């Protein structure tokens, strides 16, 4: 099977600072990739390259066999992106905003309207469909953002901390949704700091640190390599130089004279 997303020797620097130092990844259809790493590891840079937001990288990125540099528009049409920061035009109503998104994805108006109504209703936002979003809570905005990423039924869905701000029930909905989308053949690229969720949701975990992939495999494979412990422990073990319990000790010592 051909990989649906393929990164070959991807490098990216901001000025003198090299953020990605040769990322190699092949992702296959139907996989849920848990993409994890500490702050500043290069997670969001990778995501931005995949979404076509950053074009001055080195190396080769192809999606469904299309070279990202050659035809970014075709690639963008296949990707649904839910950004981490709840950036949306909040003077619009969810219906207006999603309608706009639909038009940018070249969707027929009737289809878009139908889907928008159904999706918002499923998220329990029926009553708020025609309210401006500047009064929305973080969770409500997140629901609109998730809808905007799924609206055009993309093959690849990139989720950056999609659960932030959601209440427990909505978290269950989204987690369930992720596994159903994967079963449907969608490829999901899931970035998060919440290790327990990544552990459960993803069937392949990619751990990056300082711009390189340092672990790649299913949770079980990682456990075999790193000892039978939780993802949180594995993550800490692989990415932190100092012992974390030392830091906690130092914090406790701060109380001392």
């Amino acid at each position, binding site marked *: 099977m051909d990989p649906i997303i393929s990164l070959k020797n991807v490098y990216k620097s901001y000025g003198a600072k090299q953020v990605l130092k040769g990322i190699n990844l092949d992702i296959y259809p139907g996989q849920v990739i848990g993409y994890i790493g500490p702050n500043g590891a290069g997670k969001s840079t990778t995501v931005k390259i995949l*979404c076509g937001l950053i074009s001055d990288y080195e190396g080769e990125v192809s999606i469904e066999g299309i070279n990202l540099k050659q035809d970014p528009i075709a690639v963008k049409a296949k*990707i649904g992106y839910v950004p981490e920061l709840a950036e949306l*035009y909040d*003077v*619009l109503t969810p219906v*207006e905003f999603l309608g706009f998104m639909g038009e*940018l994805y*070249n969707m027929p108006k009737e289809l878009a309207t139908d889907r928008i109504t159904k999706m918002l209703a499923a998220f329990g936002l029926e009553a708020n469909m025609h309210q401006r979003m500047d009064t929305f809570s973080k969770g409500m905005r997140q629901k609109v953002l998730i809808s905007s990423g799924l609206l055009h039924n993309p093959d690849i869905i990139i989720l950056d901390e999609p659960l932030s701000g959601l209440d427990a029930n909505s978290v269950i909905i989204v987690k369930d949704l992720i596994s159903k989308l994967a079963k449907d053949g969608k490829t999901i690229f899931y970035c998060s700091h919440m290790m327990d969720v990544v552990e459960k949701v993803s069937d392949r975990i990619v751990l990056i640190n300082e711009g390189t992939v340092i672990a790649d495999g299913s949770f079980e494979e990682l456990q075999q390599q790193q000892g039978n412990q939780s993802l949180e422990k594995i993550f800490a073990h692989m990415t932190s130089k100092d012992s974390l319990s030392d830091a906690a000790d130092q914090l406790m010592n701060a109380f001392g004279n």
Partner: protein
Amino acid sequence: MNIFNRFFLRAVLLPSGLYRKMGVNIPHLKAILTTKLMMDDRRVSGIQQTRKKKLKKEPKNTTIGSMLATAIMGCVFLFAFSVGKDYLTQLTIYFSFYIFTLTSVLISDFTSVLIDVRDNLIILPKPVNDKTFVLARLLHVVIHVSKLVMPMALPTVIALGIKEGISGFLPFIFLVIAATLFTIFLINAMYLLILKFTTPERFKSIISYFQIFFAIFFYAGYQLVPRLVSKTLISGYSIASFKYAFLTVPYWFAAGWQYLHDFQWNSPLFIYFLLTILLPVFSIWIVIKYFAPSFNRKLSMIGGSESETAPVQQKGKAIVSTTSAYISTLGGWLTEKGTERMSFLHTWKMTGRSRDFKLKVYPSVGYIAVYMVLLFVNNGKLSLDNMHNQTGPGKFVFMSVIYFSSFALMMAIYQLAYSDKYKAAWIYFITPIQSPGKLLSGALKSIIVKLYLPMVVLTCIAALIIVGPQVIPNLIFGIFNQILIITFVGYLALRDIPFSTQQASVKGSGFIRGLVSMILPLILGTLHFFVYPYLIVIIVLGILSIIASWLMMDALKNKGWGKIQVKEYES
């Protein structure tokens, strides 16, 4: 969407065939423009934002509102035609105002409206090609500028049309377009210049200083110019008497109009007409060639939430606080240790760094300053002599300067409760603060030191030089009366913890407070005016005023939780 937006949208989409040939996706273009215009319609525009408080209702159809406001401003411009004896003079003045106003309005709109950094995350990940995106942005700028320019120029177009017919307004329309293009170039250049000397983080505060400056400048111009220059002088003035006028850009536009109006091929004014054509062409060329490429990138850094652009703190280099040592010392003298001093220093920093606060308060301080100047200008009989002897108008001006000065602080006191980051005030409600009144008195003292003390120093120096040391008792009495007024108003007005309230919640008691802050200076000022010559009375009253100020401040300090509104914030 209202009729104007629909009209503009249709107008800019007329050459759709051409756009399509250029490789632009028309449905995308239309969708982006429609959405952008819809959002503009719900946003309070630059022309209104410095004056109006946040609206309670959801802003709707703000386009029509701001177009009306702009049209009224356009009518004000007509005054240019009452100055000078020829069109050349009048239009030079007109175009000066036009370029100046347009610059001041657009300079803030450019970052907030036209270059929305959210676009980068919302539109760019979508399958929209670059040409469509760039054209959408460009057309949005064109529509936005037209919405300003059209109502602004309309009154003059009509006036010139009536007075001069077609040869009056057609050249004018042409020149207004040229002047507009030049202004856009000017703004681009200013932006690039500012960005060259400062970091994107500080950029927004610099823009807000521009806005403050423009607001004060307008007020000063509006108040002072007609008074400074006598009527006969104005109507007889000709720009020709100013030898270097031909070096200024507005003069070129005025001469360009004159050339087109007279329409004599061999007129020497031809050179200016040529300049008015070349200038915008040259400006646009520079914008496209040099500014535009780096412009968007730099602008997107301004609102960037990226950690990549965050300043890297050098290790081992301590963060130097801008609150200098002398403020801490001053706080040490004026405030009680603990809560009050903390509040004093905190308010000092917050008012110095909060863009919102500065934008609300500094213009009103500037207006008062203008008004003070006006007191001197307005008074024909004022002379150094009667100021020195404190008789007649001299005494009146002296009293007015002292008693007006407290007005500058009123806005600051009302503004004290508000902040963008009002939710951060939870810290006051979870910490064990015994006497919240000290938060208020500390904040009030901070504002007095920051805004009133410089005025007091200036007034004292001026009074001592002009009048001499015999003025001291009256000066002290006057100044303490001001402090009494300020603390009294503070006592009435400060019912919220500083910086704990959202701007939108406007309270009903504003009227009473406004009345008190107007009437109190008037009563005390009148009283002072009559007892002015009696030294003993002044000394006794002065001591009483000091005691009263002290007691008032003490009362504020002892305000308990019962008199302070405790906030509950939703998540």
